[in-house]
């Protein structure tokens, strides 16, 4: 896709995205907030009984092997995948064009592919207090045994639907609707003030 003249994608967070240290950071920065801006964010869904075939397609196209179980997932740095609902998966790639790679192989008999690259905003929270800040936002268990590395969760914050993947022991990637992303971002910044945060 690199040879195409693609318009530069603007961030919905831009007016409220202020790199630097903020809040109560005199004693150290305990969370780092950033927008990861992946080129591709896809939603894949398998028809009943076709889940295993779809998981195999995901493995062939991305090289990522989904672990068994509800909400299982994995990430490789540039690419990430996780289950967010029965038979449904979010697949993310730093590069654009992942939808084209799936388009020919997810046949109508297997399931569906929805390209949400322009419809979602990806926000990363990392650092020793990431779990603490997330726990103020979402009523789910963020402890590592309950929310293992790579796993995904579907939940919401005041009616803003969010998909969350744990991409590190103290790091989470949050996918929210682009139209709600700035509001969510501002709330996340406010919630991070008490621990001291840095926007990268």
């Amino acid at each position: 896709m690199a040879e195409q003249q693609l318009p530069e994608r603007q961030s919905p967070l831009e007016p409220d995205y202020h790199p630097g240290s903020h809040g109560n950071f005199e004693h150290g920065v305990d969370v780092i907030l950033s927008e990861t801006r992946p080129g591709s964010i896809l939603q894949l869904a398998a028809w009943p009984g076709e889940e295993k075939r779809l998981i195999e397609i995901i493995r062939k196209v991305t090289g990522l092997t989904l672990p068994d179980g509800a909400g299982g997932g994995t990430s490789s740095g540039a690419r990430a995948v996780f289950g967010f609902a029965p038979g449904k998966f979010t697949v993310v790639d730093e590069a654009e064009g992942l939808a084209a790679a799936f388009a020919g192989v997810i046949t109508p008999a297997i399931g569906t592919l929805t390209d949400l690259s322009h419809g979602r905003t990806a926000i990363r929270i990392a650092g020793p207090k990431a779990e603490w800040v997330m726990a103020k936002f979402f009523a789910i268990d963020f402890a590592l045994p309950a929310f293992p590395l790579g796993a995904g969760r579907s939940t919401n914050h005041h009616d803003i639907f969010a998909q969350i993947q744990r991409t590190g022991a103290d790091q989470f990637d949050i996918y929210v609707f682009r139209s709600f992303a700035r509001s969510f971002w501002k709330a996340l910044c406010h919630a991070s003030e008490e621990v001291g945060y840095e926007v990268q």
Partner: protein
Amino acid sequence: MLITCPYCGPRDVIEFTYQGDGNRERPQPASQDLDAWNAYVYDRLNPAGDHNEIWQHSGGCRAHLRVVRNTITHEILSTAFARGGHKAEGRS
């Protein structure tokens, strides 16, 4: 009140939407049986106790669930995916 989604695990009730009485039997769309339609739309058991219900995990995985809830204590006795039949083991 917590509802344990078969996919997501225990979640606060705020993530769920009540979809109605799980005991209803919807007549075939072409049915002209007015009594059957009347029963589907209006007749409810309204038990004081275990009740079959349909809920959607609308603030999570969005799956439709069949839930048995005690209407007196709000205890959730069982949850399962609605796919595969809506009748649960509560009083019907």
